[in-house]
């Protein structure tokens, strides 16, 4: 049971990070950027997640118990702003700003998701004597995440090489909107937003707790029963920047025939 639970928790917490990194690496590779920035981002994320794990207990007591939710929502807002800036830099060709936003974005996402997994990890190690199941579960979860990330990376590389950078940008926007929309629900659970009454419920088709539900949630923030505010924010967070990028793209990218010169 520990093995399965470790795999599920690792997938839930790590898959969004793997998705983001594979999308960024596809863009970086296409633009001929080196991958050194990823090392800095991972270091920042690991340090951040350890710091947050250490402080999250106190953070949870802030704002009459709403401290963690408000903190996550604020971070998600920052991550979304960084994502928009990163896409803008990608289409405009601003190298340094692209690297800075990529590092900050991966660092912040890893901080949030890593801290969640570390709380579980430390909790388990503090009272269990056999860490083998936990280690195996983490390795299995990591392998699944890595496989999906590689597939996504190859897909994005193909789209970029075929002259469809907007498809990759759309995936990034869906991912960012999903993260933002999820954090609205956290505010609702501590009564800082009104209750989210579900507009529809697709649990019978794809349940939130199914494998596909977890995967779609990590890729594009799928929720079986979203509230109206979540849907509005999600649509706006995807459509408005996509229209803006569509207009930018007409001037930024050459046709596939001359792309090899970049």
């Amino acid at each position, binding site marked *: *049971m520990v093995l399965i639970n470790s795999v599920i928790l690792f997938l839930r917490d790590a898959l969004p990070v793997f998705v983001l990194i594979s999308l960024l690496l596809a863009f970086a590779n296409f633009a001929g950027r080196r991958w050194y920035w990823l090392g800095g981002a991972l270091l920042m994320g690991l340090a951040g997640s350890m710091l947050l794990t250490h402080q999250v207990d106190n953070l949870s007591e802030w704002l009459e118990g709403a401290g963690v939710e408000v903190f996550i929502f604020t971070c998600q807002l920052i991550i979304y702003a960084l994502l928009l800036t990163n896409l803008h830099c990608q289409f405009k060709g601003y190298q340094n700003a692209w690297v800075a936003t990529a590092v900050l974005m991966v660092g912040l996402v890893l901080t949030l998701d890593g801290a969640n997994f570390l709380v579980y990890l430390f*909790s388990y190690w503090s009272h269990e004597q056999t860490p083998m199941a936990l280690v195996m579960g983490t390795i299995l979860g990591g392998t699944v995440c890595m496989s999906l990330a590689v597939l996504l990376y190859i897909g994005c590389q193909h789209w970029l090489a075929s002259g469809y950078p907007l498809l990759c940008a759309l995936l990034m926007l869906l991912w960012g909107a999903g993260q933002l929309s999820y954090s609205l629900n956290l505010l609702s*659970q501590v009564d800082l937003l009104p209750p989210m009454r579900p507009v529809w419920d697709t649990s019978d088709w794809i349940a939130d707790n199914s494998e596909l539900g977890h995967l779609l949630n990590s890729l594009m923030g799928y929720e079986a029963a979203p509230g109206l505010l979540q849907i509005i924010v999600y649509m706006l967070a995807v459509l408005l920047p996509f229209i803006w990028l569509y207009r930018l793209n007409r001037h930024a990218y050459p046709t596939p025939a001359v792309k090899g010169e970049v």
Partner: protein
Amino acid sequence: MSKTSIKLAVLMLLALPCKAEVEEFELVLKSHLFYPSKLEVPAGRKVKLVIHNQDDTPEEFDSFDLNREKVIFPNRKATVYIGPLKPGVYEFFGEFNPNSARGQVVAIDREGNGAD
């Protein structure tokens, strides 16, 4: 007293009963088990759930049915607002110990109808 002050006072008075109407329910987590394991709440109303973790390890209160997840640290209390719920049964579990820490919120309407 100005008109604005009176309006403000009336608004505050109107807001008070709204806050007071949120009923509070308590769940206790002990030895990785939830007590009570079946919690009855009124349907159609927002309710406040206070979860007291009496274990010496953290636990994550999680429910796909209620769309809620919150980590509760050792010997701490955490508050989660749920609902308004339709009459029915809503499963919840402790994500770190899903085998043992399980329970149900049963939303019952005024006539006493809940799902079995």
